[in-house]
């Protein structure tokens, strides 16, 4: 598959009165056409900032892209001006926001909100656009679209509003769809419907999706590949099976261990102690070291590079260094790794890349 997006060594900082907050500190990843990449991590790990940078939605000032390039079909987005960006935003890449209650304009009829992009980007006239809107609403599963386009957002339920947001994002057949916690505000049954809808549409249109969430259940459901972010960096990246069945980074262990599975009994959840570091003054060495039960001396001194576990799987932890002692992940995580027999021993040492 061809690469649609390549992000190289992206740094995003915010200048505040307290100093420079380094929200994203060197993120590198790529995305192929038709692929779904899930970015997981705690609040403040930089996952939203990364994706906002992709669309140049970071308010400047105080934010700025300090370093790095964002190659979208070979063009560097980080260097584009606002005028060039406007041609891309909503047309070639679009975004689904978290809260369907606030991301629609309450004073505009739903139909007009969806039409906006069509008229601007596709140069449609009003009646063509209206026709397309009805099609789109049918596609996202809103019954009686002819009448619904004349209604205002408050006349829609939360799930229906999120469908409208999805319809707006899909209006111009974008090549890249960024979904920032699209289902967090919704009930499980509605969440299931929206996820099915998004997967279905992706199959039909072959668009690539970046999916931000902290719900690992949702990740397991939608993702082809997963990137785990911590303190502004990607600490582990791999296919969905790599991450769930063969996780290597202690932070990934912590995330997986802190979610009860439905068959877990009375054992205590593995909670990551403490809270994420202050990115105003990022710690020396591995940013996760202070909360890491498996931290070694070197973690406090030097930052681990990305170690290669397999062709698809990379993790930034010194535990993968050839001289590192063998560490057993917590019980909760080991249980998840069922069926992967070659786990515990030799394969835990990777090659340095």
């Amino acid at each position, binding site marked *: 598959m061809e690469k649609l997006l390549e992000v190289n060594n992206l740094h995003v900082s915010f200048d505040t009165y307290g100093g420079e907050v380094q929200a994203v500190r060197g993120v590198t990843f790529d995305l192929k056409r038709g692929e779904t990449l899930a970015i997981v991590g705690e*609040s403040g790990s930089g996952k939203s900032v990364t994706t906002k940078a992709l669309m140049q939605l970071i308010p400047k000032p105080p934010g700025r892209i300090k370093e790095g390039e964002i190659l979208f079909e070979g063009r560097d987005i980080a260097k584009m001006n606002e005028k060039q960006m406007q041609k891309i935003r909503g047309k070639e890449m679009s975004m689904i926001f978290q809260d369907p209650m606030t991301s629609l304009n309450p004073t505009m009829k739903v139909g007009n909100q969806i039409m906006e992009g069509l008229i601007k980007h596709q140069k449609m006239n009003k009646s063509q656009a209206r026709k397309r809107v009805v099609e789109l609403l049918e596609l996202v599963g809103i019954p009686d679209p002819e009448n619904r386009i004349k209604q205002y957002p408050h006349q829609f339920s939360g799930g229906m509003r999120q469908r409208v947001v999805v319809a707006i994002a899909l209006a111009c057949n974008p090549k890249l769809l960024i979904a920032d916690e699209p289902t967090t505000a919704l009930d499980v*049954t509605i969440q*299931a419907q929206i996820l099915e809808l998004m997967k279905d549409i992706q199959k039909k249109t072959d668009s690539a999706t970046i999916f931000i969430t902290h719900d*690992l259940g949702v990740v397991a459901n939608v993702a082809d590949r997963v990137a785990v972010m911590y303190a502004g960096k990607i600490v582990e990246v791999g296919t969905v099976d790599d991450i769930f069945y063969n996780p290597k980074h202690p932070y990934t262990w912590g995330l997986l261990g*802190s*979610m009860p599975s439905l068959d877990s009994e009375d054992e*205590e959840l593995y909670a990551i102690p403490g*809270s994420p570091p202050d990115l105003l003054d990022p710690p020396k060495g591995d940013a996760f070291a202070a909360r890491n039960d498996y931290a070694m001396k070197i973690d406090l001194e030097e930052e681990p590079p990305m170690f290669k576990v397999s062709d698809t799987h990379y993790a930034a932890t010194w535990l993968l260094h050839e001289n590192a002692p063998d560490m057993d992940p917590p019980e909760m995580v080991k249980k*998840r790794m069922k069926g992967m027999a070659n786990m515990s021993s030799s394969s835990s040492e990777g090659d340095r890349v």
Partner: protein
Amino acid sequence: MSQEKLVEIKNLKQHFKTGRHSVVKAVDGLNFDIYKGETFGLVGESGCGKSTTGRTIIRLYDATDGEVIFDGEDVHGKKDRSELKRFNREMQMIFQDPYASLNPRMKVEDIIAEGMDIHGLASNDKERKARVHDLLETVGLNKEHANRYPHEFSGGQRQRIGIARALAVDPSFIIADEPISALDVSIQAQVVNLLKKLQEEKGLTYLFIAHDLSMVKYISDRIGVMYFGKMVELATADDLYNHPIHPYTQSLLSAIPLPDPDYERSRERFTYDPNNHDTSEEPEFREVRPGHFVLCTTKEFEHYKKEHGVVNQ
């Protein structure tokens, strides 16, 4: 967990007038008991009335009809000030949003000690301080935090302050209304572990209201599933997850994504259609398996029993 009832909820109704002729029946005839020392989980989708139930039990709303019996005494009965005070000490609440439930203009010390002041639990300033420091340590914060304001804390820390505030008056029953929904996954685990530890140490009874079903399953002994103001199924946590009987519970369980890609690839979702029910009579709450109750009509009851019931030996 004993079989002694701490809270009995009998035919509880909470209706809200929304206009001259329209009434929202947020809670419509609930019956269940909460035993001493257990965690009772209440789940359902938004708008099913689970939060209203919690708030009515603690008398934040006046019930439209029905009774809440706490330790043999009707909560909604007529009470004078001192009786009400005594009752308020026994029952406390932890709220969903740790950003909205702490007064931003009060110091943590005063937030936690407010209940103690009202109930006169600390005789002097020194004792008050010592109790607050104790409580902060119990919930995993330290005593330096007492002089700070809520905005200086993260979501997880604020929720800990909320828990400390609830514990300050030594309650026996705590209603936790979505206490972890606003928190990050790793912080959720910290708070859940803390709640479990406190329950063991102090013999607390919890009513745990949530929509995150895997967390509810993990923390609860028994679970009630609500749908449109009614309880449709009630069972022990394991039984509910292994043998969901009511079609709504089945659809709810089938919709939860689990952090397991293999399971996700094969998961099939059922949709619940309320029109498929037998409408020949008003459904009642009946015991299909031992300790496992389902809202159903006589016909459905026979059917469920055949399909899910335990065979008599």
